[in-house]
């Protein structure tokens, strides 16, 4: 039986010349047999290291530890590995291969943490907790009549100006403090779609507060 064809020379991708390390990764992962197995194992090891480090880096914001944290790292690394090996042809050589690969595992860590958020049973999406907003914004409505008035106008604008979906997302993120990615997971949506919903809601609320003289317009700020 003839030996398998050597891996194609991928020293250039989309007309770009690759650095030696990136070219080696592509040769290994795009090859066959034991060489590919070794490259996949090396990549998994590297992704796991990055996932663990990223979870440690985010540690202050997440109430998870020990074996559960390591479990998240393993899941993130495994899912990232699958995505990378399935999308190898999409690597255009715009960056080093490793930076491109790390992006997958960083996104997976974000996704794992968002799904994990809903294991906390006390969290609810819909109940609007307006009482917590002044604290978050550093406003003291008890001592400041203007702040009281602003919050009342904001609340009215949320009711009157936003669509039901915008109101739902605003309530979850701003009033109830649910992370945006967790809202994405709960609504089976995408980060881009939820961000756009919030972006449009913020723009509408600002326009309403400007129209009522509570915030200055951009023109007013410039003059």
């Amino acid at each position: 039986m003839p030996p398998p064809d050597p891996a194609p020379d991928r020293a250039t991708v989309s007309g770009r010349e690759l650095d030696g390390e990136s070219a080696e990764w592509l040769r290994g992962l795009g090859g066959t047999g034991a060489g590919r197995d070794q490259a996949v194992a090396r990549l998994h090891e590297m992704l796991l290291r990055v996932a663990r480090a990223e979870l440690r880096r985010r540690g202050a914001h997440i109430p998870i530890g020990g074996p559960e944290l390591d479990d998240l790292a393993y899941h993130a690394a495994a899912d990232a590995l699958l995505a990378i090996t399935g999308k190898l042809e999409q690597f255009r050589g715009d960056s080093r291969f490793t930076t491109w690969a790390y992006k997958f595992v960083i996104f997976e860590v974000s996704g794992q943490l968002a799904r994990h958020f809903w294991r906390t049973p006390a969290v609810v999406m819909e109940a609007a907790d307006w009482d917590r907003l002044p604290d978050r914004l550093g406003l003291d409505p008890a001592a400041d009549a203007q702040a009281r008035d602003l919050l009342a106008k904001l609340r009215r604008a949320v009711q009157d100006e936003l669509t039901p979906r915008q109101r739902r997302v605003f309530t979850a993120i701003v009033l109830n403090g649910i992370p945006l990615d967790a809202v994405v997971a709960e609504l089976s949506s995408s980060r881009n779609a939820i961000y756009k919903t919030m972006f449009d809601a913020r723009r509408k609320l600002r326009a309403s507060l400007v129209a009522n003289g509570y915030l200055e317009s951009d023109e007013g700020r410039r003059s």
Partner: protein
Amino acid sequence: MTGWQALEQFLRTDPRDVGCEQAMEVLEVYVELILGDEISGDIPGTAQRRFPGVAAHLLACGPCGEDLQGLAAAARRPDSRS
């Protein structure tokens, strides 16, 4: 920053903001430009000049900003290289 300013800043949107999808698409390139800018001392630098809409998004979007920090940290760490 007063509460008033915090609310004003929270509600302010940047028309250049490209959104999460486009920012995530080029995040690895953006990070490498930032790392290059750090070495050359060119701050705010090439990344912001080449991708102003991405820069605007990363300033406004907490989750994408967090991913940017994570990816930059990973790319900086020598032990995460192969």
